[in-house]
């Protein structure tokens, strides 16, 4: 598949129920820790809608090296083709912990996928947020501007401004819907009939214990802030260094010019300035990308905290009104 860079190649992502369940199973079975569980998504493009029909997990990185991983992938895809499963690579998925996935590794993986397959998407599943009532699965791509900048390697500030890249639009999110075929709907109805146990999750959902989630979210937020802080101080330091260096260079050049004038007076050849310029090389410009990633991440955390807080206001008001009515009934 060539990379077609049309305006918005993917506007909607349609998952098969099966894919969602497989991702959940992979995340539940692997011992998460902080190493994300990853895998490959397979499917088809249909107009502007990307249909993801199957997926398979990647083995853990420390058990296989690079060659074996590619072999594994090739073998898997070949076998799936034999049973008529879509074998077209359309993206990858990753699990994450409190949504802390926006880092350089993520960017690089998505970049390599998206450069070879124009419609590649990254699905992120967050099992820590799924303890409530919702499956936290989100889908991201890299915006075209970011792709081009990353490819050209020019991620300086001026380039970012001219392209209009800011931390807000680096990773546009794409809405996700889940589709189940008719036969699978029958299956779901069957499963629903069979189970007699009441829905357990409701009990936990309306509980008012918010401190753990809040604590963790804020802790991650603070970490990202620290990162951003280091990056910005690096940039300030760089600026200071450049200024000082320029000053020193000016001084050296002036001295050299004086020298040259004296030499000319004495009738000797002027010494060129090249060695001075070579001596005072500017320091390495800190990568703008390193500063933008924590900014993106912070943005993400903030949105999540606000959503979580909004949900909990609702719960609190509900609880309070229930108690109020019961109190007024008792009196």
């Amino acid at each position, binding site marked *: 598949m060539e990379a077609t860079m049309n305006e918005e190649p993917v506007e909607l992502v349609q998952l098969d*129920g099966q894919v969602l369940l497989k991702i959940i199973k992979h995340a539940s*079975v692997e011992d998460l820790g902080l190493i994300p569980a990853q895998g490959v998504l397979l499917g088809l493009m249909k107009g502007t809608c990307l249909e993801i029909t199957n997926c398979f997990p990647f083995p853990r990185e420390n058990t296989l090296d690079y060659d074996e991983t590619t072999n594994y992938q090739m073998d898997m895809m070949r076998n799936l083709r034999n049973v008529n499963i879509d074998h077209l690579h359309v993206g990858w998925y990753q699990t994450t912990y409190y949504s802390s996935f926006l880092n350089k590794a993520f960017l690089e993986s998505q970049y390599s996928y998206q450069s070879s397959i124009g419609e590649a998407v990254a699905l992120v599943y967050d099992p820590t947020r799924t303890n409530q009532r919702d499956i936290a699965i989100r889908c991201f791509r890299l915006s075209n501007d970011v792709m081009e900048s990353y490819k050209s390697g020019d991620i300086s500030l001026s380039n970012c401004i001219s392209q209009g890249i800011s931390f807000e639009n680096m990773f546009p999110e794409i809405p996700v*819907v889940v589709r189940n075929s008719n036969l699978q709907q029958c299956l*779901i109805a069957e499963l629903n009939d069979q189970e007699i146990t009441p829905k357990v*999750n409701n009990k936990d959902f309306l509980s*008012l214990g918010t401190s753990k989630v809040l604590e963790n979210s804020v802790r991650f937020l603070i970490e990202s802030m620290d990162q951003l802080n280091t990056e910005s101080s690096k940039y300030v330091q760089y600026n200071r260094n450049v200024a000082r260096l320029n000053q020193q260079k000016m001084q050296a050049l002036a001295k050299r010019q004086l020298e040259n004038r004296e030499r000319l007076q004495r009738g000797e050849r002027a010494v060129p300035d090249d060695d001075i310029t070579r001596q005072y090389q500017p320091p390495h410009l800190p990568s703008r990308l390193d500063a933008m990633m924590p900014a993106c991440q912070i943005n993400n955390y*903030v949105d999540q905290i606000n959503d979580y807080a909004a949900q909990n206001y609702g719960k*609190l008001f509900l*609880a309070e009104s229930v*108690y109020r009515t019961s109190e007024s009934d008792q009196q």
Partner: protein
Amino acid sequence: MAASVKLCKVHPVVFFAIVDSYERRSEDSRRVIGTLLGSCEGGVVEVTSSFCVPHQESEEEVAVDMEFARNMYDLHRKVDPNEAIVGWYATGPDVTEHSILIHDYYSRENRTPVHLTVDTSLKDAHMSIVAYTSTKIGVPGSTEGTLFAPVEVEIVYFPPEKLAVDMFLENKNEQGLVEMSSELKQISKAASNISDLLDVMMKYIDDVIAGRIASDHTVGRTLMDMIDSTPQIDPDKLHDMVTDNLKDLLMVSYLSSLSKTQLAIQEKLSNLLLSNS
């Protein structure tokens, strides 16, 4: 004697994969078969994953691509070394004679493989799911046969799996697609769920009091337990607790929005600096 299988626990992801492979079968096959992976402990088999195996089946003979099956199993084992072959599945309402042969193949991998059938043809308007183990019957030395004895199937879920399946059932929009619901919608749904449950309970209690339904001591006791378990809190204290919690949330959301504004300001400033210099 091999340990006999008493219970078969299956995760829903397996069923979805089975239905999907049935839908993708090639035109000339009427049913699909595949391998079941999972773990076996005591007499309980837990099936966590599956994959489809190509096979050809005609009136007289059946051919299964065992090489493929072994290959796929090795690949799966790289991801999760704890998964073992615990049996095989077939779609379709019945167990046929060919199933015996296939079951023999799988007996070489696992001593007591479980055979799972999922009725995708929807006989009796019902997708019946049955699991079997095989035992030898007959007179030793003379005619022998294999009996497929049904085993109880229990559907087990990881908690997020349960959420997913419930969501598939409930959150359908107009086109039949399932959307992720927003946070407040979830709360209103949970609240209406509880309200419905309370209605059911109230109706039952009214019926018992009016004598329409015979009273049941265990239900009465559970109701008593439930009512006792609601904590008796002084209304002022409750109000304080609620406001404290509310204040925490407000503070955190204020601080986080503040950091977002900070980020935006930082961007603006650096843009300005650059355009000036």
